[in-house]
């Protein structure tokens, strides 16, 4: 099976879906880039992370729309185009930019179907790059998925590898509900086996990345490969873990997490986000309510601190939970034995 980076897997998904369904359009700042430049090169960028490369030459300016830096208009236009029957994939570039277009996401897109009495569909995909680790500072490094997961009407997708990224993006484009699609920047160059043909990965079905018997570890996005390293290291000592990647936080596959905790009695949640009102809290609360009697030890949350993401590499390294912290947390969960 071909090895593709997550970037190329996403790009392949966009190419295949645009070829399959002429209602699919792509819009955003620099999705092709080059318009109005002096070099004459029309596709000068192909997306700031290269995810939309090759779409403009193949599908043309009618379906691949370079926009001004106007996030509210980008997301609002995606919403309107969807109400009018298209299936837009809008690129917000950095997830942090949700701040300038939040109204269009949470007051408009998320609520259309409900407040219009079920008489509209808004099949929008909003792609956004998230995450720390590249020294991009406080306004280009956040993982704000918990903010959007809290909003009824949105589906929230957070792939951790190239295979899932392609299948989840195709599912997102074919899905009739609005989808927010988070892409961790540090995962773009990571390679994985990705089938050439189009396929979907369903929402609300967690991936059991590792199977074990002692501890349930839940991780999202970049925290999944970090957790793999910690879990694999501990396996050599005889501590084995279920490592669960929910892949979507809305809908959230609670059953897989709860079933696992019922078996292990221990839960460690890894979340590259500040600790308050985040996914770690949300999953911990769910387990506390639904599987309290199965717990042998307090739930452990491994998160970023309650700070903005710092710029300095020395600080950012401390900010992001890494394999050593994850490993220590799993050991802590095992401390009673």
């Amino acid at each position, binding site marked *: 099976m071909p090895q593709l980076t997550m970037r190329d897997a996403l790009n392949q998904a966009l190419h295949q879906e645009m070829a399959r369904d002429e209602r699919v359009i792509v819009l955003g700042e620099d999705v092709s880039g080059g318009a109005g430049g002096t070099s004459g090169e029309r596709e000068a960028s192909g997306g700031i992370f290269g995810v939309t490369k090759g779409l403009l030459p193949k599908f043309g300016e009618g379906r691949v729309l370079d926009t001004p830096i106007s996030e509210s208009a980008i*997301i*609002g236009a995606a919403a*309107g185009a969807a109400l009018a029957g298209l299936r837009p994939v809008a690129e917000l570039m950095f997830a942090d930019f949700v701040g300038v277009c939040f109204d269009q996401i949470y007051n408009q897109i998320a609520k259309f179907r409900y407040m219009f009495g079920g008489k509209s569909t808004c099949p929008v995909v909003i792609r956004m790059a998230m995450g720390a680790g590249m020294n991009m500072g406080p306004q280009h490094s956040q993982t704000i998925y918990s903010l959007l997961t809290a909003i009824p009407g949105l589906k929230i997708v957070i792939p951790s590898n190239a295979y899932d990224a392609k299948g989840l993006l195709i599912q997102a484009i074919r899905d009739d509900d609005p989808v927010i699609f988070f892409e961790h920047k540090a995962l773009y160059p990571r390679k994985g086996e990705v089938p050439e043909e189009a396929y979907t990965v369903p929402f609300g079905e967690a991936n059991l990345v590792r199977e074990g018997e002692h501890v349930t570890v839940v991780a999202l996005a970049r925290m999944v490969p970090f957790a793999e390293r910690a879990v694999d290291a501990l396996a050599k000592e005889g501590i084995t873990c279920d490592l669960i990647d929910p892949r979507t936080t809305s809908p959230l596959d609670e059953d897989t997490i709860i079933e696992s905790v019922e078996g292990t009695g221990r839960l460690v949640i890894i979340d590259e986000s500040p600790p308050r009102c985040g996914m770690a809290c949300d999953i911990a609360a769910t387990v506390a309510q639904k599987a309290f009697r199965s717990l042998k030890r307090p739930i452990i949350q491994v998160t970023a601190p309650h700070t903005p993401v710092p710029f300095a590499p020395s600080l950012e390294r401390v900010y992001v939970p890494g394999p050593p912290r994850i490993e220590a947390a799993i050991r802590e969960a095992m401390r009673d034995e």
Partner: protein
Amino acid sequence: MNGSATSDGTTLDSTRLDPARTLHAYRQMKLIREFEERLHVEIATGDIPGFTHLYAGQEAVAVGVCEQLSHSDYIVSTHRGHGHCIAKGCDVLGMMKEIYGRQDGLCHGKGGSMHIADMTKGMLGANAIVGGGPPIAVGAAIACKLRGNRNVSVAFGGDGSANQGTVFEAMNMAVVLRVPAIFIIENNGYSEHTGASYAVGSKDLAGRARAFGMPAECVDGADFHAVFDAMGRAVAHARKGGGPSTIETTITRFYGHFEGDPQNYRAKDEVAKLRVTMDCLKRFRARVAEDRSVPASELDAIDAEVSALIERAVVEAKASPPPSPADLYSDVYINY
């Protein structure tokens, strides 16, 4: 309904409006007026939940604009949206039920006054966020352009929304992408309780739109024929691929920002005076009497028919059941 766009996509000017179309335009304006005047009465009884923003006084704008459109053209409306909904062809019985919060309302009672929509009529929703609609209208215009079907997309907004950055973004993007979007600014003189003479720095909203690189004109919003003709020019421009344009209409609202607004910001006699000088229905009647296009008796007959329809709408709405508790959970997602 919405019948004045001709089949070949060209637009009519008001000098070529035949009697049937003239009567239709009058009926639409009268329907909005009666709907809103009746709501004003019914809201005072306490039977209508929430808060409501009445469109009375501005009817010639909604109707002048929508009489140039067909159901396959799109509009996006505002919190003061009843007039736009009616003008675009939404069912007034369903609208009234919606405003009463009833299960068989146009949106099953889930949206209310500020969220009435009907996709089958190209009515993409009233919108309770000031400035929320124009980006959405640009998106629908992108769809029109991609399909190459000569349809247009209209964003209604007021002098208040004209100060929102989202409107600037939408206008600029519409110019950049050269899409068939038409921005209608209903300058009714007030953004909530604050005068446009204070809140609009430049005093010139059409000029702002022009600065984004599109044609813009300013017309008397109480003059149906003037709005209709300006819209005809804008639609023709958009349908032939010329891109977006803006129409600023100067208009007034006969009621407060919302029902219950004491309107302490308006001179005591302001509305009474404007009801004399800025009543689009009176002016329409005077105009058609002068050009003898339709007899007054036919307008009177419309008045009676509309009055009966609104009475029926209120009676039916009051008799309609509220949504059931299970409806709380429906239509959040298509599948989840």
